[in-house]
C-alpha cells in the first residue's frame, strides 16, 4: 500500500512542555524538525496546576532560560500573578512562582513554534519507532505515513495508554479528555524498552462565580515582580495581578472522605499505577496524616478570561457524588458549581535508567526522551529534560559532542542524574533537598552557570553572551573594590553600625568584612562608601551574596572539586564488569544494568560501595596504563 514518506532531521513525539523545548532547540540549531501532537490545540497545555515555578522548580525555569530555552520567556508574557517564595530564607532557596493564564500560555508557546524556521507542526499519533541496526531511523504514524529522521525525541507526557479514573468511572483518554496514544507502547516494548506505569491526579475546577470569597483569605502577588527570563525587561512585568485565595478543609470534609474510602479506586485496587508521595490526593492526606484536623486549600484562577478556578490541595479520584459533597464542606465552596471533576490519570512511562545522562537511550542510538515519559512530573521538570534531549539530539545529528549538565552545574543536572542513576518508583519531582550543592545553584546565578554552555551549543546569541561576560566582570570588580576598601572605627562608621543593630568596630576592616554580618546589607553601607559606583540591582545582588555567604560557598566549592574529579573519570562503554574479580556480585549486577558513564555516576548507584569504586578506579588505571604501554 502506498503511503506518505517525508524526510526530516529530527522527529519530536509530543508537543507538551518537553516537546516544545526539544523541537525549538533542534530547529533553532538549523535542523529540519517535525513535532507531532495528537491535537495542535493542546500544544504546551497545562492540564493540572495553573502555575509555573515554585520551590526548586523556579530554579529549573531559570536554568532552561539560561541555556536558551523558551519557558521563562513565555511565562513572563502570560503570567497573572507572581511571587518570590522563601524570601525570608537564604538566597539559595528563593524561588519564583507565577500563576499562568493557561490558555494564553498555550497560545503564546504555539505562536513561538509557528514562527520558528525549520519547525513544522504535525497533528498525528506516532505509532511506531523505526530503527536500523540499533540506530533510530524515523517514526511511523497511525495513518501509515513514515517520517524518516536522524534522531527521534520521545516526549509523550501522560498520553501513553492513558486512563482517567474517578470512582468507578474510567476512560481511556489522556488529560482533559484528550485522545490517548495507544499504539506506541507496543513498539517501544518490541525495541526492548522497559515500561513502568505511573499515576498522578488533579483536583476539580470550580466556577468562580459560585465561590464565596468572603470566607477565604486573599493571597496577593509581589508588589515588585521579578521576571523569570534573564532577557525580560523587569519593567515589562509590572502588571495588574489577580489574587489567589486560601481556605481549609475541616473534620466534616475528612468524615465524608473516610466514609467513602471503600469507593475510591485507589483503595479498591482499580488503580495499579504508582502515584507520587509529594502530591497526595486529599484522601491520601486524610488517611496518612490522620492527626491533622485541617488541610490548606488554594483557590487559583485558571486565567484572566475564564471563571474557572483550580482547587489546589484537593486532588482526588473519589466518585463524583463524594467529590461534590467533599468540596461543598469547605468554607466558601458551600454552593460551588463544579466545572470539571477531579480525576486520577494512569499512563505508561519508562524506567529512565535505560538512558544516558544525555537522555539518549543506551541501546538505541539517536533515540532520546524527555519529560513525564521519563518518569518525572511537573511542567518545569519536563521542559528542562526536553531542552537537554533536544540539544543532544541536535548535537548527535550535527556530529558534535553531546552535553551533560552535572550535579554541580544545575538542578537540571541533579534532576537528570537522579532519574538515570537512582531507582525511581514514583513520578519524580524536583526538590531543593535533592541538590547537595544548592548554595552554588541559585536561581539568581543560573545565567553565570549555564549561559556559557548555551552559547557553546548555539542557542545563546553572541550579544547575550557578551553581556553576561560584562556582568561577571563588573561583579568581580565590585567585590574586589569592597575587599580592598578599608574603613576605620570612626564615629560615622560606629553610628551607622549601631543604627543597623550591629556591633561597633574594634579595628579597621574592609567593607566586605562588614557586609559579611547578617544584619548589614549593601545599601546600608552607602553613607560610609562614597566612592561606590552606580550599579544595577542584579549585580549588587550577586556581590552581596558572594561576600555574605563566602564561607559556606567556599566549602561547597571544595566539595565540588572532589566531586568533579570522580565525574571526570570516564568509564569506557565496553567495560566488562565480570572481568573485575574483586567487585562484589551485587555491584557487578548494578553496574552492568546502569552502565554509568563516569566513576562519579557509578558511586551514586545504590548497592555500589565505596570499596567497589576504589576497586574500579584501580582497574581503570591499570587498563589505561596497559593500553598506553601496548601502544
Amino acid at each position: 500500500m502506498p503511503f506518505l514518506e517525508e524526510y526530516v532531521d529530527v522527529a519530536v513525539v509530543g508537543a507538551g512542555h518537553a516537546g516544545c523545548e526539544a523541537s525549538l532547540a533542534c530547529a533553532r540549531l538549523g535542523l529540519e524538525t517535525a513535532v507531532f501532537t495528537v491535537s495542535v490545540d493542546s500544544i504546551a497545555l497545562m492540564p493540572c496546576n495553573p502555575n509555573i515555578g515554585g520551590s526548586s522548580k523556579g530554579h529549573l525555569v531559570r536554568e532552561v532560560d539560561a541555556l536558551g530555552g523558551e519557558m521563562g520567556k513565555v511565562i513572563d508574557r502570560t503570567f497573572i500573578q507572581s511571587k518570590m517564595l522563601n524570601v525570608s530564607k537564604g538566597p539559595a532557596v528563593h524561588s519564583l512562582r507565577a500563576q499562568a493564564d493557561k490558555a494564553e500560555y498555550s497560545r503564546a508557546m504555539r505562536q513561538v513554534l509557528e514562527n520558528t524556521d525549520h519547525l513544522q507542526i504535525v497533528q498525528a499519533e506516532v505509532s511506531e519507532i523505526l530503527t536500523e541496526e540499533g540506530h533510530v531511523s524515523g517514526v511511523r504514524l497511525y495513518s501509515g505515513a513514515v517520517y524518516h529522521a536522524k534522531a527521534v525525541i520521545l516526549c509523550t507526557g501522560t498520553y501513553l495508554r492513558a486512563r482517567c479514573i474517578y470512582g468507578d468511572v474510567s476512560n481511556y483518554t489522556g488529560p482533559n479528555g484528550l485522545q490517548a496514544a495507544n499504539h506506541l507502547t507496543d513498539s517501544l516494548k518490541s525495541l526492548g524498552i522497559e515500561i513502568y506505569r505511573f499515576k498522578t491526579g488533579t483536583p476539580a475546577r470550580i466556577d468562580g462565580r459560585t465561590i464565596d470569597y468572603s470566607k477565604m483569605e486573599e493571597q496577593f502577588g509581589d508588589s515588585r515582580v521579578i521576571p523569570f527570563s534573564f532577557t525580560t525587561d523587569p519593567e515589562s512585568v509590572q502588571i495588574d495581578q489577580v489574587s489567589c485565595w486560601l481556605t481549609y478543609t475541616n473534620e466534616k470534609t475528612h468524615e465524608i472522605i473516610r466514609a467513602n474510602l471503600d469507593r475510591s479506586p485507589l483503595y479498591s485496587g482499580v488503580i495499579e499505577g504508582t502515584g507520587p508521595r509529594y502530591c497526595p490526593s486529599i484522601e491520601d492526606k486524610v488517611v496518612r496524616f490522620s492527626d491533622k484536623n485541617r488541610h490548606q486549600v488554594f483557590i487559583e484562577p485558571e486565567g484572566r478570561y475564564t471563571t474557572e478556578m483550580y482547587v489546589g490541595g484537593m486532588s482526588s479520584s473519589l466518585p463524583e457524588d463524594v467529590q461534590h459533597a467533599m468540596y461543598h464542606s469547605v468554607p466558601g465552596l458551600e454552593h460551588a458549581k463544579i466545572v470539571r471533576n477531579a480525576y486520577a490519570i494512569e499512563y505508561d512511562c519508562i524506567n529512565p535508567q535505560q538512558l544516558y545522562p544525555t537522555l539518549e537511550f543506551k541501546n538505541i542510538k539517536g533515540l532520546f526522551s524527555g519529560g513525564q515519559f521519563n518518569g518525572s512530573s511537573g511542567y518545569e521538570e519536563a521542559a528542562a529534560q526536553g531542552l537537554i534531549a533536544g540539544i543532544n539530539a541536535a548535537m548527535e545529528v550535527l556530529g558534535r559532542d553531546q552535553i551533560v549538565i552535572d550535579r554541580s552545574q544545575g538542578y537540571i543536572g541533579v534532576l537528570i542524574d537522579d532519574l538515570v542513576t537512582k531507582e525511581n518508583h514514583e513520578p519524580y519531582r524536583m526538590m531543593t533537598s535533592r541538590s547537595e550543592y544548592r548554595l552554588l545553584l541559585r536561581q539568581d546565578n543560573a545565567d553565570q552557570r549555564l549561559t556559557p554552555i548555551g552559547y557553546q551549543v548555539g542557542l545563546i546569541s553572541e550579544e547575550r553572551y557578551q553581556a553576561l561576560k560584562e556582568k561577571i566582570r563588573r561583579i568581580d570588580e565590585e567585590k574586589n573594590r569592597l575587599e580592598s576598601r578599608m574603613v576605620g572605627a570612626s564615629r560615622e562608621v560606629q553610628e551607622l553600625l549601631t543604627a543597623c543593630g550591629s556591633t561597633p568596630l574594634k579595628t579597621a576592616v574592609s567593607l566586605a568584612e562588614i557586609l559579611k554580618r547578617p544584619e548589614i546589607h549593601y545599601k546600608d553601607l552607602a553613607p560610609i562608601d562614597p566612592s561606590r559606583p552606580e550599579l544595577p540591582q542584579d549585580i549588587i545582588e550577586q556581590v552581596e551574596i558572594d561576600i555574605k555567604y563566602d564561607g559556606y560557598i567556599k566549602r561547597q566549592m571544595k566539595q565540588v572539586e572532589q566531586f568533579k574529579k570522580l565525574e571526570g573519570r570516564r568509564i569506557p562503554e565496553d567495560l566488562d564488569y565480570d572481568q573485575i574479580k574483586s567487585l562484589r556480585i551485587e555491584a557487578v549486577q548494578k553496574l552492568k544494568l546502569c552502565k554509568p558513564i563516569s566513576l562519579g555516576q557509578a558511586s551514586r548507584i545504590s548497592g555500589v560501595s565505596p570499596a567497589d569504586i576504589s576497586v574500579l578506579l584501580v582497574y581503570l588505571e591499570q587498563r589505561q596504563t596497559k593500553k598506553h604501554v601496548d601502544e
Partner: protein
Amino acid sequence: MELYKNDTIAAISTAMTGSGIGIIRISGEKSVSIAEKIFHPGKKGKKLSEQAAYTAHYGMIKDGEEIIDEVLVLLMKKPHSYTAEDTVEIHCHGGVYVMKRILDLVIRNGARPADPGEFTKRAFLNGRIDLSQAEAVMDVIQAKNEYALKSSVSQLKGSVMKKIRALREQVLYEIAYIESALDDPEHISLEGYPQKLCVKVDNFLKESEELLTGAEEGRVLREGIRTVIVGKPNVGKSSLLNVLAGDERAIVTEIAGTTRDALEEQIRIRGLTLNLVDTAGIRETEDVVERIGVDRAKNMVNEADLVLYVVDSSSVLDENDEEIISFLKDQNVIVLLNKSDLPSAVNSEMIQERLSKPVISVSAREETGIEEFADLLEKMFLEGRVSFNDEVYLTNVRQKNAMEEAKRSFERVKESIEAGMPEDFFSIDLMAAYDSLGQILGESVGEDLVNEIFSKFCMGK
C-alpha cells in the same frame, strides 16, 4: 569515603603487639608539618622541615608538655616513598597504648585516619606498585573494606549503637522538617523554629560529647582479638580459661541487653588483648533449642579472628568432635589438648590427621603448657597469621573521628543559629552530621531524607 583525596592520612603500620617497634605512618602533603608539631628534636636538632629527605632523627613526641615516647622519625620525599607522597614514619617503642596516643596526636594535628587499603591504593595510583599486582591491590582494598565494615559494627557496643542510631534519627527529622518547609513554604512554617532547634542542637551536642568521652574511656568500642572458645561440654573450657587469664582476667559485661555483650570477657596475654567468647558446649543435636545454640556458635566461629578448640585428651574423639572440626577448617585455630595430666586417649597426631592446625598439650589442673600457648599466640600474631591488625584499631580511630566531625557540625549549626543565618544553612551542617554518624554505623545517606520528608510531613498540591 572519597577517592582521589590528596589530603594527609595516617595509620599504625605495624601489628598492634605489646612489644617490638611500632610504626605510625603519615602520608601526604602535610605529613612533615604535622610531624613537626609533635616532634621535639634534641637541643641542637633542626626542625623536621629543614632536614634532608631520607634521614632519621631522634627525639621526643610530646603532647603539649607531656612526653609520650622517645622515637626515631624517618623522612621520605615524594616520589620515593611507598605511596610516592611525602611520608613520615614515627618509630616508637611499641606498646599498644603508646602507638594509639601518637596516632591520636597525629590526627588531632591535621591528618585523617586512612581508609581501609588507602596506603596501598595511593601507592598503586601513584605508580609505585607494578601493574601486574593490580589484582592483588583490588583484593586488598575490597577485603580490608569488608573487614572494616564488619568490625565497625561489631565493635560498637550494642547500647552505644542504639544511642547513635537514635541521635541520627532525630537529626534526620530536623533536616526533613526544614526541607519540607523550604519545599512547601505555604504549608509548613519555620516561624519560631530556630529557637526550638537551638535547644535540640544543645542536646545533640551533649550526646555527642558523652559518646566521645565514652570513646576515650573505652566504654564505646571494644578492641582486641576476637577469640572464640569451642569444644564439647565438660572438656574443661572454663578452668582452662581461668588459668590462661591468670590475674588479668576482667569481666566486661556490664552492659545488659545484647546477648553478645553478656557473653564476653577480656583477657590479656603478653600484652595482647583477647576478647573471649565462650560458646555453649557444642554437641550435635536433634533438639531444636540446642540446635540454635550450635548454629550460633558456628556463626561466632566464622566471625572470629582466632578460635581456641579445646579437646579432652582423656576421652576418644566422637562424631561431635568431627562436627566441630568440619567447621574449623578455614579458621585460625589453636587446638588445646586439655587434661594432659590424665591417661591419654587422643594425641596431637590424631588431631592433625583431621585438622592441620597447631596443637598444644595443656593441663588446666597442673597449669602446664601455658607458656607454650602464649609463645604460639605471640608468634602467630607477629607473623600476621591472626587477621586482627591495624584495621581494627583504625576502625575505632575512624569512628571517633567521625563522631568528632559530627560534633563539629552541630557546633556549626549552633553558630549559624546564633548568627541569625537563614534556616536553609542549618540543614547543610545537620546533613553533614547525619552523614558522619552514618559512617560510624557503616550506613550511607541514600534516599533517607526524601523518604523522611514524605513519611513525616504532609506536602501540598
